[in-house]
């Protein structure tokens, strides 16, 4: 038995946006795998929801004319992983969302829900950050585009106004072209677990494959929100690939992060993982890109 107050059932995106502007306090219900948990444990008991689950317009993946990959927010994790566009151009994202929960959760959970929920451990978040994703946010007043980098406002808080719904996630061509990435989720269990730490790295190498042209590194659980590590990235860009460079980048990452001690893991242990996962993901990304170390 779930303690809902009102459940609104829009038939179109327009209707959903209208309902959202009329009931700004109502929560958007996508797969429900975050919301139902919180209703059950009382945090959201008695809430109102707008159920967008049946809106197929909000589902699916395509390549747009300018080469951007557009992922609609209701796309489930299992559909993302098995999508040919993702497999071809963004396999790191397909792999990342395949690390979520278990098969049932990957069938019901959506990528939109994952990032709108706003937690630092969201498994899609660091990879979307590392690929400079851009969000499409709609309201009855129109559409705005927002770099995902500016979306997080703190733990569980995102830049969505009461009348807004996330309607798209875009990865520009320049961002994924000739770019190879790796996501490492570190969790105590290999399934049904949240990340103790997540690290997503991608690289574009120079034509001779000897140097890093561009490296982007993002973490989950290394701070209150998913985050990039600019100092480490700057240190890597344009450098000749060596084992020492990898170590230096990993060390530099430590200066950008702010993990905390909780009963789930100590800060010190997270720092160890931040360094170690960076090295390992970096090595794998470089190899995938055709480089040697």
């Amino acid at each position, binding site marked *: *038995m779930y303690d809902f107050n009102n459940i609104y059932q829009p038939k179109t995106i327009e209707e959903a946006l209208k309902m959202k502007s009329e009931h700004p306090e109502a929560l958007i219900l996508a797969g429900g795998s975050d919301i139902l948990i919180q209703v059950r444990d009382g945090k959201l008991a008695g809430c109102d929801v707008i159920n967008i689950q049946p809106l197929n317009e909000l589902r699916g993946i395509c390549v747009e004319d300018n080469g951007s990959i557009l992922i609609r927010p209701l796309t489930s994790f299992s559909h993302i992983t098995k999508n040919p566009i993702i497999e071809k151009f963004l396999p790191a994202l397909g792999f990342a969302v395949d690390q979520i929960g278990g098969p049932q959760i990957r069938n019901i959970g959506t990528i939109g829900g994952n990032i709108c929920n706003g937690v630092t451990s969201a498994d899609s978040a660091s990879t979307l950050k590392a690929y400079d994703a851009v969000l499409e946010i709609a309201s009855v007043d129109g559409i705005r585009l927002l770099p995902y980098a500016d979306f997080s406002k703190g733990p569980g808080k995102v830049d969505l106004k009461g009348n807004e719904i996330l309607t798209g996630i875009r990865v520009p061509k320049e961002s994924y072209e000739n770019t190879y990435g790796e996501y490492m989720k570190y969790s105590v269990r290999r*399934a049904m677990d949240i990340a103790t730490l997540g690290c997503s790295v991608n690289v574009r190498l120079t034509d001779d494959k000897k140097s890093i042209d561009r490296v982007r590194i993002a973490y989950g659980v290394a701070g209150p929100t998913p985050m990039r590590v600019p100092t480490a990235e700057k240190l890597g860009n344009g450098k000749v690939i060596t084992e020492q460079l990898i170590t230096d980048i990993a060390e530099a990452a430590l200066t950008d992060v702010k993990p905390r001690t909780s009963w789930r893991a100590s800060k*010190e242990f997270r720092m160890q993982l931040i360094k170690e996962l960076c090295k390992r993901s970096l090595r794998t990304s470089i190899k995938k890109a055709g480089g040697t170390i």
Partner: protein
Amino acid sequence: MVVGKKINRVDAVTKADGTAKYTEDLLDDKCLVAKVLHSTIANGKVLSFDLEEAKKVPGVVKIITSFDVPDIQYPTAGHPWSTEKAHQDVCDRKLLNTRVRFYGDEIAAVIADDEIAADHARDLIKVEYEEYPAIFDMEESVNNPGDVPIHEEKPNNVIVKSNYEVLDYDEAVKEPGLIKVTGVYETQKVQQCHIENASSFAYKEAGKVVVVSATQIPHIVRRVCSQALGCDMGKVRIIKPYLGGGFGNRQDALTEPLNAFLTLQVGGRPVKLMYTREETFFGTRSRHAMKFYITSYVRPNGTFAAREIVAYSDNGAYGSHAHALVANAVNAFRMMYPVGAIKGVAYTVYTNNPTAGAMRAYGIPQIGFALEAHVDDIIAKLPNDDAISFRKKNMMQLGYVDPGTTITCHSTGLSECIDKGREAIGWDEKIEKYKNQTGDVRHGVGMGIFCYKTGVYPIALETSACRMILNQDGSIQLQVGATEIGQGADTVFSQMAAETLSIPFENVHILSQQDTDVTPYDTGAYGSRQTYVTGMAVRKTAESLKNKICDYAAWMLNKDRIDLDLVDNHIVRVGTNDVLISLKEVAMEACYSRTNSNHIAAEETHHCSDNTYSFGVCFADIEVDIPLCQIKVNRIINVHDSGTIINPQTAEGQVHGGMSMGLGYGLLEKMLFDPKTGRMLNSNLLDYKLMTAIDTPDLEVAFVEPKDPSGPYGNKSLGEPPVIPVAPALRNAVYNATGVAIDSIPLNPEKLFQEFTDAGLIK
């Protein structure tokens, strides 16, 4: 032969096709819902409740608080009652408690039309407390009990302190040339995590209170409910349907006594009391956290001269099984290596943690970890011994009679178990191969052995009854008070009955549900006792039924009874084995005879006055990723001596389950509490790291099968033992791989990070 054969579980199909009914499947539509209000302080007293707002919630029927329950303190442990006062279980809790002793104590209950109303009203109850400082550390609890004892009956917070000594310890340590080894080993509090939460419903019928409950021990729960309510035992009826796991947690009265009381508060209307996973975690029972101080004196030739243990057991807020567990642990410390002088002291203490109770292998996984870790610590200091030679020199041998309990070793295949496991894992080659490793990823092998009793004799009563009824078609109804809780008991009882009666397995119809108004007496599923103790009752009853069938056949055939036997579903002539008549024909006649109808049935009690030891070993071959603080188990094998294996297929399943539990115990699981308030932090299956299928390596199982002369079919215990040797084998493998000897579990990433950092492996 049916015993010894691989046979599918008798309940496999009904459980797979969904027709097996569990407690919740039996609920009445009109059932009211009860929700318990749990305290939000760990130590103190409720001064008052403000129910005003809560009562206003639509759908609330009644609210009962700790001020409304009978002033009766009752026991909850699933032990046979002792008629001697001195041996009776601790009676230290009321149905709801005004004196709060842990964060989560049951202080009030709301009865409502539905769950939402009950939850909502519960959240609106305001409580005023008087708070006392809480004690969460067991040694602190003994050393510094504070001004207000947790229970006034035990002013120093010690429930029981016990000690023993075999030979003269002080004298033995004087022997020249001994090597002294000391260690402090700690094991954590973990939960049984049965898939079906604590759940029951209760109603009144024909003047009796009926409780339908997922319990391992229906007859004991009936007695406990009668004690808690202060009514006669005959006025309580317990029904146990199919059940989703127990692992000892349900060897305790859990929701049943309160549930029985609540239905009586609403005129006998059905009330359900179903705990959530969170409540099951902190509000039922768990494995005891224990701490052991061990000192050994060993001769350079690798034999024990003397050994001492001081053990602490954190019992939490209420008595439950109390001292029985750590007593079991320090006894096993003696039994496993009964060599030299041995001395033990054990404390069971109250703390303001949730209550610990019975859990699979009852104190032995704790000592199993400590002792087998300690043994590897000893071996590291010996010039000429290795893990196997030392254990073989010192371990229990055939014919051993334990001086503390008189339990006798009637059979042992431990040495063969070790040989078999050693061979299977490739022990000797791997010990060589894994020497002098460097680098981030290192490999290691480790082992642990154990011995385990079979039932609880002579520490407590061992008794079991069984009933068999002959059907007209020659099949039988089999009824036992012993419970099927997923371990496969019904299947092996059916095999035993078929074996002794010499009828087809399919012709045995066992009743899986227990109903204390109908079911023969048995204390229930615990102590790995049922295949042994109940097995004896099944055998005895089958012999008695067979005798009655032959008697009747003799009348029918006009032959001498002594010339007849029941073989292969037919009455045959003794000696020649000539078939005279089928059992079915005898059964039809017995039922419908116009001159001599006889509804053939047998019922027997077996009063068991024996016990024996089962044994086993675990070998693990692992890989440690040092920078990531991760352990990967590449191979793990348990080899068991449980005497004759009644059903190799279900036995293997039982070992798989135990190994999985042992892996979780050794590697990941731990109940975590807020150090300030005592609130459980990870009371859900996300944060409590029960292993998933993908985390579980292939589990290899082997048996050696010496026939035990005391067992009904040559069998000994197997239900609990598989969990015991896994954690020490893993710990010793990490030691072998990295040189880091870790003296507490679980060996989770955070623990490995600390240990590897301290050892300089992570800088």
